[in-house]
């Protein structure tokens, strides 16, 4: 094995504004107290499917390796089960850091195109913004149409079962006045300077 091919990462390539931005988000302030024990990776039921373990992501975030973190599938595999947050001996809310990273990736469109988890999050977001409630069947249909329409063929058995059992509701659920929902989603004027999202 030629060990000299190993890629060297330079501190100078890092982006110190990255950890600074993450640490400002509520729940993420304790990032620096990470002792790299690996408990988060050990208890994570999805870490074996990730290209980087949560422990590695914690370290890369705090040293500003933004590009590497944003390109990894780790943040999108996180299913928010909070095992890491509960077990962390340094009381770091790892799940909240994962959420902060997802938000940043979506804001900066730094994710693979047609990546199903991102499509689901965005479609869910749009549906609630326009109606105030979610219809799961509409959501899953949108998700499949936008990612892999052929996958729906494989879901025929489940679809038929759900119809047969009265669980396949196509009725779009809504609050009485969805405009009320959009109102509370605008950042108030004395907010933290973030612009109101426009969808």
């Amino acid at each position: 094995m030629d060990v000299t091919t190993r890629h060297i990462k330079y501190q100078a390539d890092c982006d110190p504004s990255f950890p600074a931005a993450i640490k400002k988000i509520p729940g993420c302030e304790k990032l620096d107290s990470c002792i790299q024990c690996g408990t988060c990776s050990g208890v994570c039921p999805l870490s074996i499917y990730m290209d980087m373990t949560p422990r590695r992501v914690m370290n890369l975030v705090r040293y500003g390796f933004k590009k590497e973190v944003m390109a990894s599938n780790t943040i999108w595999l996180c299913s928010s089960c909070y095992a890491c947050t509960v077990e962390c001996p340094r009381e770091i809310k790892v799940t909240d850091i994962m959420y902060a990273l997802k938000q940043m990736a979506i804001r900066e469109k730094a994710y693979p195109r047609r990546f199903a988890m991102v499509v689901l999050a965005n479609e869910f977001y749009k549906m609630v913004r326009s109606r105030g409630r979610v219809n799961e069947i509409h959501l899953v249909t949108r998700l499949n149409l936008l990612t892999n329409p052929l996958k729906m063929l494989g879901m025929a058995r489940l679809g038929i079962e759900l119809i047969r059992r009265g669980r396949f509701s196509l009725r779009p659920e809504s609050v009485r006045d969805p405009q009320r929902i959009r109102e509370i989603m605008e950042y108030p004027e004395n907010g933290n300077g973030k612009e109101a999202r426009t969808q």
Partner: protein
Amino acid sequence: MRYHYFPGCSVLGTGRACEESTQAVIRELGVELKEIDDWNCCGATAYMSVDEHNALALAARNLALAEKEGATQMTTPCSGCYLVLNKTKHYIEEYPAVGNRVKGSLRKAGLNYQGTVRVRHMLDIFVHDVGLDEIKKHVKFPLKDVKVAAYYGCQTVRPYKDFDQQHFPTKIDELCEALGARSVHFPLKTRCCGGSQMGTLPSVAQRLVFAILREAKRQGANLIVSVCPLCHFNLDSYQPEIVRRFGEDVSIPCMYYTQLMGLAFGIDPKTLGLQRNLTWDRCALRKQFAPAAVGA
């Protein structure tokens, strides 16, 4: 006992049985649920992935609506909704800057958030407010042949441990034993089922569910009892695909704990929405309870 009730979007669609069984059992126990008028989606895990302020403001609208109705305690059967609503309440209190911004957004929509409503999980209401002794009094058909693997899922006890232990919760086990069933040792009881990854990355989520089903079966369970509509969907709905893919018969009947309570109380399986479960058709309890309930 009276609680304000947040149903959540799932129970209007694929999780209908969750609501049906919860309502049936709650009526039997004499507890009153008042649905929060015009409630909206809690945001689940998807909202927090897109925008934090919007996620918290969206969930907080429900808390403010409950307050407006004079609620002191609100409850929900879905563990996802429970976590999001509870987390929102915690964040508004723990981070004043977040709280002020959320309150500001709500004010624009004519709502006032004070923080006076407690968010409770439905399971918590059953085991602590109603109590196991009271539940035992309603049992007409003790479920002596049922060996339950009690599946809590992740968000029922994490990250907040308001009503049960976090590492090895026991409340569903105790509840099932009060119904006359036996609960088996089940180390995977809080292991994640993959949640919405079943839709986005089924190859991984199916493997997570496979492990849960397999462990339950090998520990001698003949029924998995779950809490949350999403866990139930994942465990109950994909068994044929999972059996085919992993080449091992891990199929095992699944139901909501409220459905099991209803059966023990002598409530008609149809009222409990049991026919909506994909695994109900081959559940041993089906033969036992269909005739019994007709006479009851």
